[in-house]
């Protein structure tokens, strides 16, 4: 069970980082600001 939780946490960190990078860079490539709402 402990191992499954560890795997889950590792997977979550990788996936969240990956999708955040995808969102940020693909908006940036279009000259748009992904963080628009948070910077405002």
């Amino acid at each position, binding site marked *: 069970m402990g*191992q*499954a939780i560890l*795997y*889950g946490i*590792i*997977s*979550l960190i*990788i*996936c*969240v980082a*990956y*999708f955040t990078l*995808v*969102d940020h860079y*693909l*908006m940036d*490539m*279009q000259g*748009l*600001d*992904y963080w*628009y*709402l948070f910077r405002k």
Partner: protein
Amino acid sequence: MGPATRKKLFSIMALCAMVGLLLLPIIMSLPSPAAGEEAAADGAKKEGDKVEKGRDVYYKTEGIVVGAPAPKTTDGPKDYPRYNFESRVLLWFANQQHLYYGSFVLAVPIFCMIIEFMGVVTKDKALAKRYDQLAYDFIKISLTAYSLTAILGGILIFTFLTLYPAFFGYLSSIFRPVMHIYALMFVAESGTLYIYYYGWDKMKEGFLKWIHLSMSVVLNIIGTLLMFLANSWIGFMMSPAGVDEQGRFLGNIWHVIHTALWNPLNVHRILGNMAFGGGVVAAYAAYRFLAAKTDEDRAHYDWMGYIAMAIGVAFLIPLPFAGYWLMREVYAYRQQMGITLMGGLLAWLFIIQATMIGILFLSSNYYLWQALGRMRGAEKYQRYIKYLVFLLVCGFLVFITPHTMVMTPAELKAMGGQQHPVLGNYGVMSAKNGGINVIITTTVLSFVWYMRGNKVSTVSWSKFGNIFMGVFFACAYVNIIWLAIYGYYIPANVRVGLSVPQVATTLSCLFFMLALNSAMMKGAKQMGPIEWGKISARSQYALIMLATAFTWMMGLMGYIRSSVRLFWHVNEIMRDNSPWAYTHTVGFAANMISFNVLFFWISILFVFWLGSLGMKKVPVEAKAGVPGGAPQPAGSH
């Protein structure tokens, strides 16, 4: 020289002849536009006239005028001769039928190439034989349909010549060299197709089989080029280039072909044709499955339907992205055109389109869930299907939510404007993109489950792999939905970019998760064989639904693409002055599309019947060694 060597030599010569046929029109055409341009320039210089120059409406380059201006037509028998019927409807019918058959005969040889290749590389001899037989059956159907395509092409040209002579005359004056290349390519396509078909039995083994497979590659290159050339005509009509503002040809044929929308149209049509072809073949297999009398036949047609559906869906998944690219280019070319399409006159047709896309994906998923039933060990996924249904339905409802309403002037007045007080807050593009991406991601998930239905991973890292896959899908859903909601809180010019990361999220699931699943399933333990033929009849109706939805949607999208020109034959260059230069009501268009769909399906059933008259039986040895009597192409997925 022995007979085997002679056969090899002849096969290589035939292949070289095909490649030659492929290159011949291109080589022949190369000097002609250039020569035409120089000759025109020289002629003008010699006569001492001033060389008239024009400015390209799209490329903004200057060129020497070598063509006549676009004719200014008037409503009368000279420019618009007619029967006692709406000419546009007749042309619509002829065009649509030619397009349906054209798509089918371009898609099926690509299928054959893929299936023949699978047969060549597979190590299981019985399975290889079945793949080969399947590819042969496909090309046989395609051959009959090919003749019908040519006949319909002839009918289409005659319809143009008799009902729209001024417009067709102008178009053919611009595309003269392209039309000749098109005709030569058509000859090359026919020759290659016949050699490919009739050489099947003579080139069925060893080196000769590879030559035969190469022929299918050449055949498909020719077919694709043919389609590209035909696309250049519609691309020119929507977004003209290579002419000045009066419509005079400026001598650069490449500019006329390579218009703003040509490439997006090419990509969209290739994918669309493949998805459509897959749907038609799957429906054919479904019909044969339902009519089958023996378990053996049921197993064969179940397998055939699955293969066709898998190929069709493989091309259906990237289709919305290609469509998105096309729309983006339409907006980039003329913003007004984009608004007419998606926010104005034709917007409600996109709601119908969204409904059809939803039906396509729902049918595909339903088929895959039903197909899990023929695998031992796949029961473990059954209890989770309800969650997928929930996701699909939510995605579907968001996807079909409109942003505006069709209203009478009185209703508009009562509401105080175009914006609906409730609906106006919904149906924005990022939310709709969220809907369709949820649907596609769920389809990928269904496919992953299907792929591992009767298998248990034996790799040492399977626990981590399973958890990672689950978390990846969960995060992908969260990201897509988050971006869809986020779009409501940021301005439209920022929101428009959100669709790119949404698409990237879905594609990440598609590529990474299918790759991860394949790696996990390498050497996996099988819980039991796939029992081909042991699938519910409902699944086969889902395949028929899939094919009908494809056909209907193709008709709808063709109509939308064509009617966005509004009252122009060639956008902003040649005006349509016929009495039919108005946009039909949604109801009329829907009835017309349904009629076209019905006509196509009745005629294709006739083609299938013709094809079945001389169809070979499935090789009996294919079922050898399979428990339960049903042929089992294990690992075919």
